[in-house]
């Protein structure tokens, strides 16, 4: 008995002599490779068109080498400068050398724009001095200051020191209404220039309001869709889907026609006598307009997940609750509603995340107090061309969404979500 136990069991082999375990692993590996190669195109597509661009953009929010790449000599000097003592002759000489090259290569505008972001009002100082650079004679400190007295201001040099650092927290500081300086570290922005934190809050508030309104309006509709006889509910479904399939721009413009002060609603109210002709309601080009239009546009994203969940709830549950003595309200709250929570979660999250990034609708109907943070990001991408700041703002927005997603997962549980 004892002997037999110590003898290792003969491995089971396949027809060609290889151990069965190995053979099985090979077969599994092959099928796994096959499965992976089917997913590979999608994976490559997502990496190339989604993940890598996002990482590249995030990187732009903390990395900007515009200044250092066009002013190699000066950057070298600024690195060793302490930011307290007056800049010396060597630094001025480096400045003149770099300005000369930049002027010849027509890169001076990029340098000037970059420094101007840190220290407004210095753009022309650079472009103007660069134009004179080839005629400047040593000692450079005197001749540069003679060309423009502003060079004597140590703040200009501090701003250059900041911009000469490729890796900078400056854009994230700006995106949070702060500033990053050489001598004081992080300080907060002048009060009359603070805007981003306020806009982040407003974006959250408007998104939450839109989500709430969508739930309020969408829940009964989804309930009807799920419970009405097929013939009626199909018609209702078409009424939900038809606007869903209509272009976003068309729907937004339609709201302009309806809500503007000479529009349908105001005309009607004047006609009925609710308001006077010269005191029409401002329903558009403000926050009200943004909320109304966004609620309408995002409503299907709430209704459809709710509907798909409600469709699976057997009507017998409600009947059972009623037959056991529950009032309609109790039966609804205790029996029906808890079962729709996956749908509420899915719809709410979907609407909220879509709303947070909304930008065309607020741009068209938002006026001044209905603008969201995404409008600011678009502004920095398209108008001010400060892509690094746009990237920082986008990064914060992305972090916010991920945080909310995480919180949702902790509170409700992401498995508890049903999208369709």
């Amino acid at each position, binding site marked *: 008995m004892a002997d037999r136990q110590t003898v290792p069991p003969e491995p089971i082999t396949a027809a060609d002599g290889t151990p069965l375990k190995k053979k099985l692993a090979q077969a599994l590996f092959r099928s796994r490779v096959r499965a992976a190669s089917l997913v590979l195109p999608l994976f490559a597509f997502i990496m190339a068109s989604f993940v890598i661009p996002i990482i590249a953009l995030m990187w732009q929010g903390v990395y900007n080498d515009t200044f250092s790449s066009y002013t190699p000599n000066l950057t070298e000097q600024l690195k060793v400068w302490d930011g307290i003592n007056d800049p010396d002759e060597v630094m001025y000489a480096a400045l003149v050398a770099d300005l000369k090259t930049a002027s010849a290569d*027509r890169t001076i505008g990029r340098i000037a724009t970059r420094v101007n972001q840190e220290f407004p009002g210095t753009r022309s100082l650079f472009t103007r001095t660069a134009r004179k650079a080839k005629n400047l004679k040593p000692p450079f400190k005197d001749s540069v200051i003679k060309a423009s007295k502003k060079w004597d201001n140590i703040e200009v040099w501090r701003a250059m020191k900041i911009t000469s650092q490729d890796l900078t927290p400056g854009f994230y500081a700006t995106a949070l209404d702060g500033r990053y300086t050489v001598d004081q570290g992080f300080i907060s922005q002048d009060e009359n*220039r603070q805007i981003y934190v306020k806009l982040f809050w407003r974006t959250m508030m408007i998104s939450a309001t839109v989500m709430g309104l969508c739930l309020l309006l969408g829940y009964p509709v989804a309930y009807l869709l799920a419970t009405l006889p097929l013939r009626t509910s199909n018609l209702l479904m078409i009424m939900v889907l038809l606007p869903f399939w209509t272009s976003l721009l068309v729907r937004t413009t339609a709201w302009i026609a309806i809500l503007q002060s000479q529009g349908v609603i105001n005309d009607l109210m004047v006609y009925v006598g609710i308001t006077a002709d010269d005191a029409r309601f401002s329903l558009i080009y403000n926050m009200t307009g943004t909320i109304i239009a966004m609620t309408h546009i995002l409503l299907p994203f709430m209704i459809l997940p709710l509907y798909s969940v409600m469709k699976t709830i057997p009507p017998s549950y409600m009947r059972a609750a009623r037959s056991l003595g529950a009032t309609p309200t109790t039966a609804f709250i205790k029996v029906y509603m808890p079962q729709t929570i996956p749908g509420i979660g899915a719809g709410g999250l979907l609407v909220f995340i879509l709303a947070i990034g909304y930008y065309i609708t607020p741009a068209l109907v938002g006026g001044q107090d209905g603008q969201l943070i995404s409008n600011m990001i678009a502004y920095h991408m398209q108008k001010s061309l400060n892509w690094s700041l746009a990237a920082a703002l986008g990064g914060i927005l992305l972090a916010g969404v991920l945080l909310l997603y995480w919180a949702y997962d902790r509170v409700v549980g992401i498995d508890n979500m049903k999208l369709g």
Partner: protein
Amino acid sequence: MSKLTKKIIAIAGASVFVSGAAMAADLTVVSWGGAYTKSQVEAYHKPWMAKTGKSIVSEDYGGGIAEIKAQVESGNVTWDIVDVELSDAIRACDEGLLEQIDHSTLPPAPDGTPATEDFLPGTLHDCAVANIVWSSVYAYDSSKTRNWNKPTKMADFFNTKDFPGKRGMRKSPKVTLEFALIADGVPVSQVYDVLGTEEGIARAFAKLDTIKDDIVWWEAGAQPPQLLADGEVVFSTAWNGRVFNAKNAEGQSFEMVWDGQIYDLDLWVIPKGSKNKEAALDFLAFSTATEQLAAQASWISYGPARASSVAKIGTFHSDPSIKMADHMPTAPANFKNALQNDFEFWADNADQLNERFNAWLAS
């Protein structure tokens, strides 16, 4: 092959051919759209196409240098020649986004004066050649009965007591802040000195605060005439040529208030790496010749950038009784209290003031 299939293939082939032809235009000219682009098509594009036999695709945009920058930096330049504002031309040139333009290639005036002397002072730049002088003014619809006297001054625009109602303004600190200071009593000659100080900026915003709740912001040049015609606003700042055309070509009864007007240039620039640079340079020289600039002035009330063209300004294309010279921003009657947009001030302070303007809007 059935008849139907053949037909479908033929149609598909034809549509491919058509879109192929559109793609293969010899020159893409980009401008601000509306009545302004129309004036350029009539005065520049059509004669140039007739002369050279080449085709032009005309595109619209809303100003700024973002698209030019994106095209140049991605190495895929699809715009060949673009109509830009002065401050943008200078900035794009400094950033190396534009081709340099040799001024000696520009045609001389009919009397032989070289182009460099014929163009008005400040209209020729390293990378840009001006075609028109345009102006920001404010306008109102005189057909609507209102209980007020005719507005005559910039201050009236900010006076909501005597002139109640909504006002349209361009959503940009540029021009808006200057208007506010002029209305607040700053002489036009000192506007940029005042605006260069913290107190001056605060003063401009304080003046804007007085009408903030009554402002409807516009962004495209075609919007102000629409806002006025719809009765959405009682006053609107606008570009003078747009108001002129709405009045004379579309029969609106708009009036302009020239007091405190701010004039600026529009210039042609060629993005660096344009695939049709030769054609673009040829078009640029052709369109800024004395004849063409004068011809454009009969389509829209923007002043030509050449002295020799100013003398040749004719009448409105559809109404010979309208002498265009009287409607130019530079006409003596209109030019009494005018301010030239200071491109250097805006190149320096645009970022800062935009930030502050946005913060002010959101507050």
